[in-house]
């Protein structure tokens, strides 16, 4: 194969290789923020109001901070997104889920917690932002074995 052809094919291959990558956005600023407040600002959700319609189901004690199960249900009508923040983590923003027509604002996920901390969930509905918080204690189980 002549060199020019190889270069053109190589370039084409690169262009076609990662279509998903070309389309996927990732909020580097928000995920890189070192405080929950900064993360929320970078998400464009500066001010939130507490809401009992946003429900966090999680154990009060996690035997291991590497895997902490959290279940979130938003009963706030018109919820279009849910963000999960772990206040004391080095980078508090853990995830942000956008729900389109066809999905319910419900989520169960496992997060890493470096230490006992508040978990803050922020839901966006109808242009407004709501928050709920739950403290989860992190222990170290067993003798490391």
């Amino acid at each position, binding site marked *: 194969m002549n060199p020019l052809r190889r270069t053109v094919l190589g370039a084409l291959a690169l262009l076609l290789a990662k279509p998903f990558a070309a389309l996927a956005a990732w909020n580097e600023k928000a995920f890189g923020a070192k405080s929950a407040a900064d993360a929320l600002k970078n998400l464009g959700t500066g001010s939130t109001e507490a809401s009992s319609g946003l429900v966090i189901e*999680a*154990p*009060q*004690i*996690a*035997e*291991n901070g*590497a*895997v902490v*199960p959290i*279940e979130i249900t938003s009963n706030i009508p018109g919820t279009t997104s849910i963000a999960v923040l772990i206040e004391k983590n080095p980078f508090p923003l853990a995830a942000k889920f956008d729900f389109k027509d066809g999905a319910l604002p419900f989520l*169960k996920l*496992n997060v890493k917690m470096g230490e006992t901390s508040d978990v803050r969930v922020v839901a966006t509905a109808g242009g407004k932002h709501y928050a709920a918080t739950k403290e989860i204690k992190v*222990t*170290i*189980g*067993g*003798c490391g*074995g």
Partner: protein
Amino acid sequence: MRLLRTLLCVAAFLASASHAQDARKEIQRYQQMIADGSPVELFELGGEELWKKPQGPKQVSLEKCDLGKGPGVIKGAYAALPRYFKDADRVMDLEARLVHCMETLQGRSRAEATKAVFGNQDTPSEMEYLSAYVAGHSRGAKMAPGLSHPKEKEAFELGRALFFHRAGAWDFSCASCHGEEGKRIRMQDLPVLSKPEFARPVVATWPAYRVSNSQFKTMQWRINDCYRQMRMPEPKFVSDATIALNLYLAGTGKGETYRGPGTKR
């Protein structure tokens, strides 16, 4: 003054007792939530692949491996282990039997088959995948290891003796940690494994996925690691001693319905 002090002591005791109870309840909730959708299923999938994969000089899969219920019968096999096998004239647990099949069916050398029996979080071992797969097929079966053959009885008694035998740098035995009710290490309860009521839920949930290091742990690993924690020499993989202990535990926990590979902290 004395009465007040007594009342305060009682109050504190009650508060701490109820606090401990609350803590235990919340930890149970944690355990339930992590078990829901645990990566155990991925290990069972990986095990299925390995079970069906032709390997070794004979390029044969493990699909004709006899785990005690006939060649290739996986359903319920784990719940009936450890037990005596005539073809090897030996009591064997799951991992010993898997090695046996790797040697006899696949023609692999013992050295090669047991080169890396305990994996790490990036590379689980064959034993770990296969254990998950086989154990998963005993979900719902009652734990019924072999306890009637003379060699099985012998192994059970050896297991019991080893459980209580103190040795090593710290003069520990299994019973040092697992011999008294109400003991725990940090927030981890230490079940008294020599008593059926405490052994049953334990044997019904091993082998298990450990979320703390994202690894699937087998019974051979569990026993090996207990010996490490007791500062005793490392036992040989699938040695008579480890199988005897495994049979002692499984026998003490017999009758319990096997819940499938567990998910633990």
